[in-house]
């Protein structure tokens, strides 16, 4: 029997598949190449900003601000985080950008991951967060499980 959760997971995986295909992301890419591929796919400019003053961040691991009129976005991560972690946090935001449903946002569009901890998220918001997180996991697999990385680790 197919449950609602199964149906949601299937939708999430399909959206994540489309997002990865949309940017033509493939194994062996570096993180910078992934960001560039997203820029090209969406015809936008992106900046990754390592924030040094994160005293007030608390549970915040990264955020994206998007300027539709300039077709420009900036992804802010903690400068103090390990590169692998801050790249994952940034990849989550790339996931939002690549996800079909989140390419144009309203002024106060807001969200946070860890939907299990946020009862205020609506079902579409919850699903969008899962999609972004799935895309981040896929990007991580492309970055860190490719032969290129394995070879260079000798």
């Amino acid at each position, binding site marked *: 029997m197919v449950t609602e959760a199964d149906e949601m997971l299937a939708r999430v995986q399909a959206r994540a598949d489309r997002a990865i295909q949309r940017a033509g992301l493939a194994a062996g890419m570096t993180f910078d190449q992934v960001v560039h591929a997203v820029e090209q796919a969406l015809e936008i400019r992106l900046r990754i*900003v390592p*924030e040094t*003053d*994160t*005293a*007030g*961040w*608390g*549970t*915040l*691991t*990264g*955020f*994206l*601000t*998007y*300027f*539709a*009129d*300039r077709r*420009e976005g*900036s992804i*802010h991560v903690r400068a103090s985080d390990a590169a692998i972690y801050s790249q994952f*946090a940034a990849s*989550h*935001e790339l996931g*939002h950008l690549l996800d079909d449903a*989140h390419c*144009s*946002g*309203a*002024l*106060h*569009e*807001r*969200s*946070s*991951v*860890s939907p299990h*901890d*946020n009862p205020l998220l609506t079902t579409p918001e919850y699903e969008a967060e899962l999609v*972004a997180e799935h895309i981040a996991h896929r990007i991580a697999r492309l970055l860190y499980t490719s032969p290129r990385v394995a070879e260079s680790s000798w």
Partner: protein
Amino acid sequence: MGVYDRNVGRGAVGPPSRYSRRVVANVDRLRRAKGLTVGELLSRAGMTKSYYQSRAGFSLPYNTNDIEALAAALGVAPEEVANPDSAPRVEMRVPAAPLAARVRRLVHSQGATENDLVDHLDEIDPAAAESARALLAAATNTVVLDEEVLRLITHWADVPTEYLTDYTDDAVTDRTDAELELRDAMREAGASAIQFRALGEMSPDALRAIAHSLRSRPPAT
């Protein structure tokens, strides 16, 4: 949040909460339904006029002994007096200047004018528009408003109703002020959307950190 009074070892009562205001409304509704005058109710409940007036005027809340005495005087169960769901419309006394300042803060956050807000309310309920106008122009220390007016204003501004109806709640105030600060920063920076990833609930400080980052960004090229 109440203020802890070290001299007597218990929290000060403070202004009546939203729930307490519903109890006041219930007492008034039940009194009218029973055909009792205020004097008759007070006589039956063994309550002085000044004690009653400070509760009916939203300066202090009833305590549970009061609820029991009033229920007996009204011939109903205490639960009926204490049930918040049976009070659809509730009035409240609010400090005029601080509440008006909050309403102006909301107007600013919407990039609107006071007239825009009043016009919006006028389309829904002319009486609500008149109440909002009175609050914004109040020269007295306090004003009595229908809670629905404050709900309509917060709905228009897309903030929690408690920001105006439970203005003594420091946590709601802090979080809402931080949200408003972030909205201001987004508008000033020309940001059309913001997404963030957090492991658990975002603190007001985190919202302020994002606002600070937006304000510190280099100008568009």
